[in-house]
């Protein structure tokens, strides 16, 4: 028989809120660590008629219980913090937990929004025994600080019912489990209310009483759906489960405890996400090259920021730096309620070739430097150069993303040693070209020229110019030209 383990997370949303609160508090409190102020009672309400679904200890002390109406709960205390139930978020979180557990156990089935089913039998080949497996699992799970209940079972449904009813059922011998299952009240079964009522009218009170009846008899009295359910519960019929496949992408959503208007305060929650991302990437031996950071603002469109780094990395601190720089130039339209993080581009880690004997200088690689500069100044402000095959001077220089072009010099040798004379005069080009051609305003002294450039008739950017090298009264070397209409312009500076 296959052994299953069911993990039930009764209060994911509440736990998440508490974690956020604790991290915030630990930042604020002094080193002595005494927190005299008790946290305010907190409940989560949901459903059509706003019933209490999750509540913390402080709320329980006030006498609030699950299933209570919102009005009744709110009447108990002024201090009560109420949050609406968010099923989508819980489903997302349970996937994240599954992803986390996937590191130590293989077969996981999702029972969204609050449960996970693990197939234990297969994993016992890897762990010494069941207790070893369970302790590994629990210590792994405890790092996420979610409350959970668990139970073993010889059918998925049995494990599920036991986990929901009992807190922690670490038994694994079939008799004990069977006994626990027999002791469950009938209402614990997930059957339609009508069916339950019919069973109760017959006189069944516990699951054991139901099991005592042969299946054939049950089939005669009730419909075949009940028979199927019971046989699934007893492990006689296989329960169809689809196992979880880890996502190839990293995408996280983190609601914030309070609205944040100051972008500096986003650091802490952002770092949390980035650390998760680091773990995600490291386990897959991948590096992130581009992130999409989404700021969900109140009463405004979500703001999407792309943070890129030419050379991928998985380190959270480096990404936090880049995100900080990017955020420094952002203005918000409203307070931020939640943040989302997604890895848009992943890459294989580069095997960097370091010079073993060169002295260590600085800490950044060229690509890292470019990423930092681009994050702060914008992508347009940091550019690389490449020479294009065009005779028109203004088109001979192309701008590209830095470090992308090899940019090998035309001639292998360095500076020409022999003085170049008139035949090579065409090679004389100024190091600086004015961003726009300017009319020549002052007196110049022409030294060299002309060099006629007459081309481009095919793409509507025709030039017919005679270029001269000239010097003005201040001794500056200019590159000037005269067009067909005999007008003089300045185009470059021989710096």
């Amino acid at each position, binding site marked *: 028989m296959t052994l299953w383990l069911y993990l039930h997370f009764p209060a994911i949303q509440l736990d998440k809120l508490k974690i956020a609160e604790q991290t915030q508090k630990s930042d604020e409190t002094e080193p002595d660590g005494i927190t005299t102020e008790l946290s305010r009672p907190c409940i989560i309400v949901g459903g059509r008629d706003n019933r209490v679904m999750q509540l913390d200890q402080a709320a329980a002390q006030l006498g609030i219980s699950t299933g209570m109406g919102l009005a009744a709960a709110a009447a108990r205390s002024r201090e009560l913090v109420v949050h609406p139930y968010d099923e989508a978020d819980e489903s997302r979180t349970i996937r994240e937990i599954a992803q986390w557990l996937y590191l130590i156990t293989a077969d996981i089935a999702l029972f969204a929004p609050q449960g996970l089913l693990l197939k234990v039998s297969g994993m016992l080949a890897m762990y010494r025994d069941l207790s070893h497996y369970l302790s590994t699992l629990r210590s792994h799970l405890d790092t996420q600080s979610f409350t959970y209940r668990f139970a073993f079972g010889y059918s998925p449904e049995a494990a599920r019912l036991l986990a929901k009813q009992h807190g922690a059922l670490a038994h694994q011998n079939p008799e004990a489990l069977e006994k626990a299952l027999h002791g469950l009240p009938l209402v614990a079964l997930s059957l339609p209310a009508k069916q339950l009522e019919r069973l109760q009218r017959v006189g069944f009170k516990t699951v054991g009483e139901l099991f005592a009846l042969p299946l054939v008899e049950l089939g005669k009295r009730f419909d075949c759906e009940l028979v199927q359910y019971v046989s699934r519960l007893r492990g006689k019929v296989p329960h169809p489960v689809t196992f979880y496949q880890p996502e190839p992408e990293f995408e996280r959503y983190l609601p914030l405890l309070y609205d944040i208007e100051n972008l500096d305060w986003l650091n802490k929650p952002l770092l949390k996400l980035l650390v998760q991302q680091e773990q995600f990437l490291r386990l897959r031996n991948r590096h992130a090259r581009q992130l999409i950071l989404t700021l969900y603002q109140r009463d405004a469109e979500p703001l999407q920021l792309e943070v890129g780094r030419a050379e991928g990395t998985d380190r959270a601190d480096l990404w936090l730096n880049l995100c900080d720089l990017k955020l420094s130039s952002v203005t918000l339209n409203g307070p931020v309620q939640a943040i989302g993080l997604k890895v848009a581009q992943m890459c294989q880690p580069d095997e960097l070739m370091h010079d073993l004997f060169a002295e260590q200088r*600085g800490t*950044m690689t060229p690509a890292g430097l470019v990423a930092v500069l681009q994050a702060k100044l914008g992508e347009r402000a940091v550019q690389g150069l490449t*020479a294009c095959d065009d005779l028109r001077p203004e088109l001979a220089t192309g701008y590209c993303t830095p470090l992308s072009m090899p*940019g090998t010099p035309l001639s292998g040798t360095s500076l020409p040693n022999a003085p170049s004379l008139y035949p090579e005069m065409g090679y004389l080009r100024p190091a600086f070209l*004015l961003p726009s051609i300017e009319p020549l305003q002052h007196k110049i002294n022409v030294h*060299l020229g002309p060099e006629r450039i007459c081309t481009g008739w095919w793409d509507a950017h025709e030039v017919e110019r005679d270029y001269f090298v000239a010097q003005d009264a201040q001794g500056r070397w200019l590159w000037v030209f005269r067009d067909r209409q005999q007008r003089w312009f300045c185009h470059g500076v021989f710096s």
Partner: protein
Amino acid sequence: MSNLIERLQRQDLVWQGSGLIGRQQHSKALTTTGYTELDKHLQGGFPKVGVVDLHTELGIGELRLLLPSLMQQSGLTAIINPPARLNADALQRIGMDTGKLLEITPGCPQEALWAAEQCLKSGACNSVLVWHGALQVYQVKRLQLAAQTGEACLYLLRREHYGEGTLPVSLSLGLNPHTKGLSITVKKRKGGWAQSQFALDMSLLWPELTEQFHTQSKEVPDVAQQYSTGR
């Protein structure tokens, strides 16, 4: 007396100002400028690490002064806030690897200094060229420290600003146009004396861009003559 000094020197008990850079590091801390004459005056060349202040107008040959030393480097060269756009064509023609150039055009002077600091301390850049206005002492000190962290050299290209006092730079040069190339004044040199003015002959590398070349060789082709007089 001289005997005594000699003896003390041999025992390394006399500290000499000219040895400030350190005798053993001397050749390592400087990089040749590519002009033998200038190397002689600077006793080895530009510093590899530090801040070089160049007081210059635009277009008199200030970049030509730096290009030979920039071309020897293996790391990146950052060009921050240039007065006009760089011409990759021209740089490749003289044999420069344009793939190692970063052209940074920041929005304001503060950002230019920030970018310069980042480039300097990254360790990825060998030299950083910044076109800038007047500077404060603390700004230069900060850049100097960044240059030491990343072992890079910062070249400040700007007009001479009177009244900003002496800045803590490693080397300060004043550049003026000259018929042979550039007339250079060494205004300040760390570990050495400031020297009087001298003329740097650039005709070996850029003969066409010296006035001397044009006054000497008068054989301007007829076509050009025709142009300069106007057809």
